[in-house]
């Protein structure tokens, strides 16, 4: 789960990572009140889950009330690379002396946290790497030992940051690691890590991704989820406990098991089709889950045909068939369905479908045959 800048900074503050003073705002009035309370100059920042806000005009300096009001008005509702701005963050302006880059993330290849530091901040890490690959220092941390002082010092000295800020940067990295571990983050990134004119070190931006599987122990973070930023189909699926990813095509897809669904997308693409979604109905899918899934798939208006690819293991094909029949009873289905049922109780499943003789539902025996059929029907 990605957090907005100000949400990330709330977590930073909690763990002692220094950040400038700031307040979130959802309206122009709130933004102006925040600016007045903080004192000018302030920076008004669009809160969206995408980079490149500055270039898109989503970050503006305001030196007085009039400017703050004008910027807040301009930025709220703005579209930044497909994301609508619903919230602002009003922050005390900082005088920039140097910009560094710091991050801690999960390195799944090494199966360890990876800490990174660069003296070249303020641009994408890929950009830094392209300009000067030696400018990014990387260090793995043993999860059982944690981030020690020496990790921070190695990063700081090898990155060649200014001698006078080594101590505060090392301290910040240690607090950042604490945030990473205690908040169950997959990524905490500070870019830029600012050195102000008065040589103070603060996190000027915050990019934080939280492990969705950990939210049961972080109720406050769980409440930070921002439904307004989500795709409506994905939101609908999440609320129903389905694993759904929206794609660009027109063929709705349902399967059981993540690997099989991914494979189904691939086979449909190879057959010349274009999948509209990934939907894993999960192991042991029951009839009600199937009804929910059909609703989610069809709520995407681009869908012109639907493929069910079920290999029954724990999932029983007769349950899936029953769910499909129920769904057809509840929903006015206007597009053709291709259904492939194999595995546990496949014959019973196919019989249920035959008995129900649903309109425009085609049963296929193999995955490949089903893919070809749905591509043909989708047009």
């Amino acid at each position, binding site marked *: 789960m990605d957090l907005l800048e100000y949400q990330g900074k709330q977590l930073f503050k909690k763990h002692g990572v220094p950040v400038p003073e700031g307040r979130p705002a959802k309206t122009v009035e709130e933004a102006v009140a925040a600016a007045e309370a903080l004192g000018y100059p302030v920076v008004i920042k669009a809160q969206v889950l995408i980079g490149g806000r500055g270039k898109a005009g989503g970050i503006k300096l305001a030196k007085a009330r009039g400017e703050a009001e004008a910027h807040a008005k301009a930025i709220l509702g703005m579209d930044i690379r497909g994301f609508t701005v619903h919230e602002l963050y009003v922050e005390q302006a900082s005088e920039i002396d140097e910009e560094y880059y710091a991050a801690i993330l*999960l390195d*799944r*290849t090494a*199966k*360890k*946290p990876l800490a990174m530091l660069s003296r070249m901040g303020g641009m994408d890490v*890929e950009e830094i790497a392209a300009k000067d690959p030696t400018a990014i220092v990387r260090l793995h941390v*043993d*999860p*059982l030992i944690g981030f020690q002082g020496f990790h921070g010092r190695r990063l700081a000295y090898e990155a060649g940051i200014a001698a006078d800020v080594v101590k505060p940067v090392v301290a910040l990295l240690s607090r950042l690691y604490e945030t990473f*571990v205690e908040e*169950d983050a*997959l990524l905490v990134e500070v870019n830029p890590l600012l050195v102000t004119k008065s040589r103070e070190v603060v996190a000027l931006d915050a990019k934080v991704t939280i*492990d*969705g*599987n*950990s939210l*049961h*122990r972080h109720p406050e973070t769980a409440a930070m989820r921002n439904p307004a930023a989500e795709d409506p189909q994905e939101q609908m699926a999440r609320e129903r406990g389905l*694993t759904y*990813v929206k*794609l660009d095509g027109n063929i709705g897809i349902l*399967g*059981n*098991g*993540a*690997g*099989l*669904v*991914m*494979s189904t*997308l*691939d*086979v*449909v*693409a*190879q057959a010349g089709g274009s*999948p509209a979604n*990934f939907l*894993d109905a999960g*192991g042991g899918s029951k009839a009600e889950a199937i009804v929910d899934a059909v609703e989610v798939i069809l709520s995407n208006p681009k869908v012109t045909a639907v493929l069910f690819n079920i*290999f*029954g*293991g*724990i*999932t029983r094909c007769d349950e899936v068939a029953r769910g499909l029949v129920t769904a057809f009873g509840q929903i006015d289905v206007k597009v053709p369905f291709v259904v492939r049922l*194999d*595995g*546990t109780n496949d014959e019973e499943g196919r019989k249920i479908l035959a008995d129900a003789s649903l309109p425009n539902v085609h049963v296929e025996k*193999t*995955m*490949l045959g089903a893919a070809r059929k749905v591509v043909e029907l989708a047009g």
Partner: protein
Amino acid sequence: MSVLVGKDTRLVVCGLTGREGRFHGLNNRNYGTNVVAGMTPGKGGQDVEGIPVYNTVHDAVEKEGANTAMVFVPPAGAADSILEALDAGIELVIAITEGIPVHDMLRVYTHLKRGNARLVGPNCPGILSPGKANVGIIPAHFFSEGNVGLVSRSGTLTYQIGNELAQRGFGNSSIVGIGGDPIAGSSFIDIIQLFEQDDETELIVMCGEIGGEEEERTAEYIAEHATKPVIGYIAGFTAPPGKTMGHAGAIISGSKGTAQAKAEALEAKGVRVGRTPTEVAEIAASMLGAKA
């Protein structure tokens, strides 16, 4: 022979008294697996259709000689349960649970590597050695004994490929689901090493998916060490970057972890990669010679 589970397996099911644990634990026993105990805190002294339940894994080891643990415990307590099994001296832990927090698994994995025990999973379907033992949720009736070793990050995809092989007359030595999480106890390399040492296995099928660099590392390993033929499959050619495709580990980050890159890495090392499950079975048939 077979790998990891077989006739010597003495299984304790952590979470045997739960709905899933009970269903699959009994299912595994029906298949012939030696399920010696269950573990559910507070239910020690009870039994599940004759399988004695203990409060701790330590008790199950001490009283029933359990050497393998299957973890069906809900995500919040699963890491604790894996650590308990390791502490109790269990040699092989198979964690079925999906949704264990990554930081829990980081600690568990690092701790695991201090000792000699093995962990398969989490978020995996388990291990089936046809005709010998089934530990997990793999529907065993699709598979028969044979000479193909199957290792996979995905469950149902494995069934699909296994079934395609079965239709062409091939059985399996063992089917090992290593799971779809970013931090998994066992890697492709770990399992391929075991298949290399297994007399029964003549061909190895590895079934990867997007995310991480395991398949790329495995390609290097195969080129240097594997003596038996390996066939690859990768799911997720059409997956967009930045989206988690069901499995926590199935995500393309930037340009890393694409199916294309993985397939190419394998092919660059001489591993044939099927582009559909059907093609995998066809390649296997051409290599081993059609049977049925």
